């Protein structure tokens, strides 16, 4: 393989030598930026996880532990961090690293814009977190921040500047995400290597492409809603004033969820893409129904713009039949994907690596989250379950069991490519079991809590729910231990030698055709691309050539004996 020969030392000849710190702070290399995204997002993940532990600690006791307004800050910031500062940016980080490699590109289309997007991310995150320094505390109106709760109009709602920095920080994060999405789309559309047609792109590239389209078309409404919230809070505006002449509180919900529902797919599509890379590799088979999977992804993307008001059934201000039918319709392309994944593994000789454990965990947990979400799509059921723990269970099955399991699938799978080192498989599997058991302990009882009528976002509850809540809390602590096992794995393996070959998993896509980690500009020559599995093609061609050489070497003896 000609493309293998480049080593990390083959930098561009005119690159000046710089101190490593300066090099990382000023880099425009998509791989370094990807790693910085992932490290920053993981730090926020640990903070968000700590807040989750505190939330669960509060809920061990029916009468609570912390003052209620502290509790409001805890769950608001937990959700904000996990959604906007962990899942979104960490998938951006993974994509930043692997998408240019997967399409045979030397870098992103706009490397400096890429660096700018990254640096806005920690800035926005710190602005949001700075709310904890406010005398009245951080934002406490929930991650959805509905007015009038998030405004000044009702006495006592969202006082202080915690909510204001929440708004400003999210505006900054929004600009970062928007620029990142545009950069990603231009990269995918314009920088593909010759031979890399759209229908030869890896599924992860497809899902991240659709994710980026959703970001471009949905995120600006959230920015508009945040800006309007800021005007209302600080300039005496009436955007969401319920009085006649104002826009009304329901206006916010419409604008927010026009972003918020595509956002759900922004969070989950990258993980769907990751496991679609991992399942075929460890099943030793191609993805079943490559094109069907792509069409299903496009269908999910399109339908996601037509379901926003299913979050608003109880307002009575949405046309429920339409949104209910559209919501049920999304289950169809999702079902297609489940069929793709299951059929890929059918009669396969599956290699049970840690990445594969997490991919299978994704399938099981996301299935539960998907099915209990379909229940909520039915208005009569939603009227009963709205704002109960059923919803909390649903969102955690899809976002933790789905998105986070997909992200960690990607970590165990691409780690050798990123670092040149393998993560410890036994620790990886221990991490999996803590998370798989922990997630079910934490989130399954919430279904019953919700059906029995326990309200979400309330820091106290009736003693009858105490046992189930304690089970959930034990589950949450197990998740915390699992995360620590992952940290330990990273630290322990960081001292091992770099032993990862180019293609340790015998994989399919182009990132495995270069060194681990790849050199600057990724490839020394453009790899030959003739199918959606170019690295497998290279492997087969090499094996065929080796066989031919062996046959030739053996042939004189064979003739002599004949």
């Amino acid at each position, binding site marked *: 393989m000609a493309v293998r020969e480049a080593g990390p030392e083959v930098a561009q000849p005119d690159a000046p030598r710089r101190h490593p710190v300066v090099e990382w702070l000023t880099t425009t290399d998509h791989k370094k930026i990807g790693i910085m995204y992932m490290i920053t997002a993981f730090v926020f993940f640990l903070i968000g996880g700590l807040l989750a532990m505190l939330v669960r600690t509060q809920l061990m006791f029916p009468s609570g532990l912390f003052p209620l307004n502290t509790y409001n800050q805890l769950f608001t910031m937990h959700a904000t961090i996990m959604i906007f500062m962990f899942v979104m940016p960490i998938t951006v980080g993974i994509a930043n690293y692997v998408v240019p490699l997967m399409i045979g590109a030397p870098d992103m289309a706009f490397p400096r814009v890429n660096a700018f997007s990254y640096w806005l991310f920690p800035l926005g995150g710190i602005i949001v977190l700075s709310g904890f320094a406010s005398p009245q505390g951080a934002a406490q109106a929930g991650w959805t921040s509905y007015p009038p709760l998030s405004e000044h109009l009702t006495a006592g709602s969202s006082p202080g500047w915690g909510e204001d920095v929440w708004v400003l920080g999210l505006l900054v994060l929004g600009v970062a995400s928007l620029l990142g999405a545009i950069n990603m789309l231009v990269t995918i559309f*314009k920088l593909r290597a010759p031979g890399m047609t759209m229908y030869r792109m890896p599924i992860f590239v497809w899902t991240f492409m659709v994710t980026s389209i959703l970001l471009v078309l949905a995120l600006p*409404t959230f920015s508009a809603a945040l800006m*309007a919230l800021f005007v209302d809070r600080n300039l005496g*505006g*009436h*955007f969401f004033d319920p009085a006649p*002449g104002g826009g009304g509180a329901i206006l916010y919900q419409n604008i927010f969820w026009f972003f918020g529902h595509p956002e759900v797919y922004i969070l989950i599509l990258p993980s769907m893409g990751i496991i679609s890379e991992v399942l075929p590799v460890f099943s030793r088979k191609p993805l079943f129904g490559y094109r069907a999977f792509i069409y299903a992804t496009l269908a999910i993307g399109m339908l996601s713009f037509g379901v926003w008001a299913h979050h608003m059934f109880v307002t009575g201000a949405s046309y429920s039949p339409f949104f209910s039918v559209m919501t049920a319709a999304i289950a169809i392309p999702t079902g297609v994907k489940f069929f793709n994944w299951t059929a890929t593994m059918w009669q396969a000789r599956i290699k049970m690596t840690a990445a594969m454990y997490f991919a299978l965990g994704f399938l099981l947990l996301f299935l539960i989250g998907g099915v209990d979400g379909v229940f909520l799509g039915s208005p009569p059921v939603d009227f009963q379950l709205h704002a109960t723990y059923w919803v909390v269970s649903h969102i955690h099955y899809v976002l933790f069991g789905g998105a986070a399991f997909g992200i960690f699938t990607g970590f165990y799978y691409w780690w050798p490519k990123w670092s040149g080192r393998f993560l410890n498989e036994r620790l990886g599997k221990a991490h999996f079991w803590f998370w798989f058991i922990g997630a079910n302990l934490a989130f399954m009882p919430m279904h019953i809590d919700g059906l029995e009528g326990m309200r979400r976002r309330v820091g106290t509850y009736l003693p009858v729910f105490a046992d189930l809540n304690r089970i959930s809390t034990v589950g949450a602590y197990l998740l915390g231990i699992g995360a620590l096992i992952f940290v330990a794995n990273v630290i322990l393996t960081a001292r091992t030698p770099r032993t990862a070959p180019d293609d340790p998993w015998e994989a399919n896509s182009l990132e495995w055709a270069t060194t681990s980690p790849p050199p600057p500009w990724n490839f020394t020559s*453009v790899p030959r691309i003739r199918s959606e599995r170019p690295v497998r093609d290279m492997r087969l061609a090499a094996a065929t050539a080796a066989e031919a050489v062996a046959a030739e070497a053996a042939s004189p003896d064979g003739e002599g004996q004949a």
Partner: protein
Amino acid sequence: MSSQTDQVPGRLADGMPPVVLGVVLFVASECVFFSALFAAWFTARARSPQWPPGGIQIDPSLGVFTSALLVLSSVVVAFAEYALRRQDTAGMRRLLWLAVVLGLVAVLGQGIHLGGLPFTISSNGFGTIYWTTSAIDSAHVLGAVVFALVVLARSAAGRLMPSLMRGAAVFWHFVVGVSVFTFLVLEVLT
């Protein structure tokens, strides 16, 4: 002048250059952003017994003037782009400077108009959305002016990619379109 290429070496050379595609995608996101503002406007209008509330009268003459200036500036930018295509760099710069001046005068006109309004951002829903949308609209004209200045600066340094001019022109035309639409919605159709 065109020493810098529009396309990435060794990559698909057909279709839009990357910068133009980037600007087009940004414009798509901007359309969604303005849609949300107009959704707020029409929602508040539908919820209001009287629109504009309290018999507010707005004199549209300054709006007509700034809109006309902006449409003219769009034509000037189009000619600047044609000049660049003919390799007439000096002509391109002259026309782009003219467009910058027209844009700045239009923003000044919008500022004078806002300063003379009989209501503020906190008066009522009408005032809030009127002021916010107008201010954001003016900010966009300023953004287009900055983009044109970047083109001029790169041209002066001899490092202008023709696609950057195209990108600036696409953004300029979009901003003018939004500005005229905003004028029609906020002042003519009320």
